[in-house]
């Protein structure tokens, strides 16, 4: 059993770890193990507009996708989780449809549809397409949170004198905040990560990072790809560790503060 565990970890971790040394490689293309080490490709990445522009595009598009997704998903989730209305099950199904349809099918569909609207090769086009893909994911995360939400909390707030709007601002929203943040994050990552649709419709002007990486690996296998992978890996790692570190820090501060307070218990 332990051996299987180790193997699983190795298989999952190896591709992640392998790109790190490759990013410091001085080889002309992707090669492992690297013949020598230097930082040249980091320099290349941070100075080459051919890489920086797609990076900026990706950040821009992912942020816009996140915003549009949340604007659509928050009210939709409240409606679908808390209310009954005619056609609710169809609406539910439509929300989740993009998860079931293969990306390549969606991509072809968007290509012709957005083509008619003259939105192919524009930022707006990519944002719209990515939003369609992000909506079901954000919806799933948020609806799970909302279903677990104790409505007595809202009733309590109202009985204590909070109008429905104040109840939403002071109680519903803060308690749902973790769910909202996670669902927004998923929307962002889904767009940042998306390749298939981006290849079809992003074109030159709105070229995203995954698309550029894909093109690059096909043509020259530029080790800058390893640099980008490493950087993304570090960002994700920091994002994962930061909440734990923050919690640990806060607990320590609280421990110190409560040491002088009376002990708990009944």
């Amino acid at each position, binding site marked *: 059993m332990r051996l299987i565990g180790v193997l699983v970890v190795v298989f999952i971790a190896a591709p992640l770890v392998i790109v790190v040394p490759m990013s410091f490689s001085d080889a002309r293309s992707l090669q492992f193990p690297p013949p020598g080490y230097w930082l040249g490709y980091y320099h290349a990445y941070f100075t080459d507009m051919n890489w920086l522009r797609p990076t900026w595009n990706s950040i821009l598009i992912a942020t816009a996708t996140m915003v549009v997704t949340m604007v659509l998903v928050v009210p939709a989730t409240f409606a679908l989780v808390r209310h009954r209305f005619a056609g609710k099950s169809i609406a539910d199904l439509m929300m989740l449809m993009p998860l079931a349809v293969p990306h390549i099918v969606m991509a072809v569909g968007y290509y012709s549809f957005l083509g008619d609207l003259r939105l192919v090769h524009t930022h707006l086009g990519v944002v719209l397409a990515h939003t369609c893909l992000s909506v079901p994911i954000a919806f799933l995360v948020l609806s799970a949170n909302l279903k677990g939400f104790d409505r007595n909390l809202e009733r309590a707030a109202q009985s204590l004198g909070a109008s429905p709007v104040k109840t939403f601002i002071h109680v519903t929203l803060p*308690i749902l905040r973790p769910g909202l943040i996670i669902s927004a994050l998923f929307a962002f990552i889904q767009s940042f990560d998306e390749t298939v649709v981006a290849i079809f419709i992003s074109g030159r002007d709105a070229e995203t990072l995954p698309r550029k990486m894909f093109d690059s690996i096909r043509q020259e296998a530029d080790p800058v790809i390893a640099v980008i992978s490493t950087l993304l890996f570090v960002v994700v790692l920091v994002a994962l560790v930061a909440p734990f570190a923050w919690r640990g820090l806060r607990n320590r501060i609280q421990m110190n503060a409560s040491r002088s*307070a009376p002990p*708990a218990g009944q």
Partner: protein
Amino acid sequence: MDHYLQLNGLTKTYGDFTALKEVDLAIGKGEFITFLGPSGSGKTTTLMIIAGFEKATAGDVLVEGKSLSGLAPHERNIGIVFQNYALFPHKTAVENVYFPLQMRGVSRSEGLKRAEEMLGLVGLSGFGQRYPKELSGGQQQRVALARALVFEPSLLLLDEPLGALDKNLREQMQIEIKRIQRTLGVTTIFVTHDQTEAMSMSDRIVVFEKGSIQQVATPLDIYHKPRTRFVASFIGESNIIEAAAVEPAARKATAEHIGEIEYGPSELDVEKGTPVTLMIRPEHIRLSRDPKEGRRNVRMKVETIVNYGDNALVIGRVGDLSMRVRVLGADVVIIKEGEDCHISWTPDSVYMIAK
């Protein structure tokens, strides 16, 4: 009784189902009233209508003569403690208690001071900075109570607030809630399906069944003078005897297996020969080997003895009639399962029930 809170003909239907039918009730200022009944009897529905979370199909709720029906829940100035406490998890105890004051525009410094005072009243001074999840069930309960009282509500509603606590803590909280309620003099409605809670805490008990009120009376009257069969069997244990009135003037009836049976004073008028329902509480029956002199004696065959230590429940048969008798623990040695014995009672402990 003065009429601080009035329920006039409250009715609530969901499609074909009638959850509440024409409930009328008047409650005096400062009273501690318990709504008692099994689940689905309409007690929580009534509470939710008073709080404004449910809309009555018909009827009205009045506080000091003014109708609440046009008011949203947040305009009613009613404090509620929910079964699961519903404390805001993202706020500390003192911020939870400050919340209703914040909503009423009280400044933060003044509001937090009053919240701390209220926490002191419920016995939680020094716990204000804790988050709800850092408090025990009983402490959360006290915070919820403080939060529902700090804004001086016109009514306090408690929706089965003790259900989640263990037995010892529950008894402690019963005394505590009663003390706080007396200190503040707030008119209180307490909803429960637990009859001992209702008995020990209330000024008056309202017994609900199937969407209507069965009886409104003090705990003692509910116990000793139940108006209906349902009340008699829901509160405490009882022996119900179907009989026929023989001589209403002399309060005499006759029942199968028992024969002639006398009953205590009753407000009910019965005609000679009509069927009547009589009730005897198990602890009012005496059990002995030999007939007791000067009392009505009936032979009973003992079937089961359940010993509780300080007392015992003896279940036996008089003919086809099952009877339950409570005896003191020390007296149970006189009898064994399967033996015959005598049971007796005084006419005063036989109470006639309307239906």
